[in-house]
């Protein structure tokens, strides 16, 4: 599904290397987790994959089902099936949440040569999916993420994911700032989407979320690289011992 090889990335504004040769391979239907200390480059990886400006890829490749992601516009990556749940979802005053969702969905359908969804069919879908995430009608009516609490913003990300039905989902610290109940809702939302044709890359700081979304593979990232890869037990090890041991091990 997602194939990253030797990715090196620096910031355009300053001459600062963030990713230093990162490789990752996620098969269809798999759930991978990336854990790592703050500042190790996890968000940078997710932004580079989603196509945010301001980064320069100096080396390496990233492919989604064989297509070169790095040469595509962000909207084309989305239409190709990539989705990033932002660590910090963006507030857009003046753009209604519903308008936003519908425009996004129809834009993706259009670029794949599919019919636009009718207003009625769209409404039905949103309502159903919003309900399972405990997002009420009033929240749907508001401007995108404006006046949303931290937890509401994260649930809104999952709602978008559920509506857009991407094949490759990247969740950047979707658990941060959530209380236990909100995290359960988010995890349930994610689990409901798990399927043989859909893969996940779950970036998280803590083991907590992984109790609810069981990963197949866990990667430890530090200083722009994956330094260790293992099974779910790796996450438990971090939970018990912190990053210090592993960092020392590879140093």
């Amino acid at each position, binding site marked *: 599904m997602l194939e990253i090889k030797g990715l090196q990335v620096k910031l355009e504004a300053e001459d600062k290397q963030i990713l230093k040769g990162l490789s990752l391979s996620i098969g269809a239907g798999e759930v991978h987790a990336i854990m790592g200390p703050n500042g190790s480059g996890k968000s940078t990886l997710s932004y580079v994959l*989603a*196509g*945010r*400006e301001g980064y320069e890829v100096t080396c390496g490749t990233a492919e989604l089902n064989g297509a070169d992601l790095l040469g595509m*516009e*962000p*909207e084309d*990556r*989305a*239409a190709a099936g990539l*989705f*990033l749940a*932002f660590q910090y*979802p*963006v507030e*857009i*005053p*003046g*753009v209604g949440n519903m*308008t*936003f969702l519908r*425009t*996004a*969905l129809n*834009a*993706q359908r259009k*670029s794949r040569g599919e019919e636009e969804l009718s207003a009625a069919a769209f409404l039905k879908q949103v309502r159903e999916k919003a309900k399972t995430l405990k997002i009420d009608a009033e929240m749907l009516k508001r*401007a*995108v993420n404006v006046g949303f609490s931290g937890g509401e913003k994260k649930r809104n990300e999952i709602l*978008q994911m559920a509506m*857009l039905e991407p094949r490759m989902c990247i969740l950047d610290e979707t658990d941060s700032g959530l209380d236990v109940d909100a995290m359960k809702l988010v995890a349930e939302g994610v689990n409901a989407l798990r399927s043989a044709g859909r893969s996940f890359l779950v970036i998280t700081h803590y083991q907590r979320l992984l109790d609810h979304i069981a990963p197949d593979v866990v990667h430890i990232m530090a200083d722009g690289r994956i330094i260790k890869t293992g099974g779910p037990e790796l996450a438990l090890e971090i939970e018990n011992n912190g990053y210090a041991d592993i960092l020392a091990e590879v140093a």
Partner: protein
Amino acid sequence: MALPKLKADATSARLDALTLPKGAAWAVEARKAALERVTAMGLPSRRDEYWRYTDPSALVSVEAPSAALLTDDEAPVFGTVDRIRIVFVDGVFDADQSDPMIGTGIEIERLSDATAKDIHWARDLFGVLEARAQKPVERSLAALNTAFAADGVVIRAVAKVEKPVNLIYLHKSETSDAMLHNLVRVEAGAEMTLLENGPAAARFSKLLEVDVSDGAAFHHVRIQGRDHQRRAVTHTFARLGQQSRFKSFTLTANGVLTRNECVIELTGDDASAHVAGAAVGDGTDFLHDDTVFITHDAVGCESRQVFKKVLRNGATGVFQGKILVKPGAQKTDGYQISQSLLLDDDCQFLAKPELEIYADDVACSHGSTSGAIDETAMFYLQSRGIPKREATDLLVLAFLAEALEEVEDLRLTEDLRGRLEGWLARRRR
């Protein structure tokens, strides 16, 4: 004080080419007085403080510069609303295309008919608010309009009027030069909506005097025509009585030159005046100017100015807005915001917000900003699959939303929004 020679020459050249319309003695007198005001002030030039950002020469010249006609298949503006349509073609009333001037709770007449009558209420309004508004800032083009505009409509609302009156200004001749003067009196406790749309002429001078009596409400929504080369100067003068409400919203797209002046006097306690504008312009020859002057001369009044401009490809936006709070106008609540969204680096927004306050118990705030599209918002939209140009349009509409919200009638808001969306989408193809 004698006028500078250039100004005096330009003024007399223009005046020589015009003739005062005939009418009843009071109307002729009012027009002569207006002509005297023009002669004394002279027509504006770039050197005038109030025209520093906007060159008025095309509005002053003897001949109107020509403007090509726009042809498109857009649905009629306000077409979904049951309304009384009054049509002017290149500034000339067209009875065939107009509805009968009859409505419940409302009296409508042509200005040329009203000014021919020896006794008419319009006498108390015609040129009166315009003359009052010449201080402290001269508006000689408005006086020119009072003197020479031969037609327009005269409206008196005496109850809560359901049907809006829609003045439709069609542009059919590339060289037309039109002037219209409209009067509205909303009697105590009455309410009405005035709609205006269309480019009107290659060059258009339009003046509206509105007297909003105690407890009355006046709603005004207009869409200025999209003919690329058209030029327009419009003046709205309003006087507000106690607990009255005034709301005006203007949507402008295209036109090489638009100067919309709005002068409002809050003279009765607890009155409220809102003026808003949304303008979208494209190209180095686009200039849109909102010039607003609101005077608080009573206690407990509220005023709100919301002006938004979206500029691309070298377009220019101008905003000059003033709130004057007179001595004794306590508990004034004044708000003013002017913002521009610059879609290209070479666009410019020139803003001159002013507050002048002579009372101590007031709350006035003003702000002016100009900036580009928010990159973070743009990336968020794109990351959800929305192409850049479509995302730009969403953000443009979002930017204009605060101004559009000033329109109370949701049917009209929908029309305006849909039209804007259509114009933006058309550019994408």
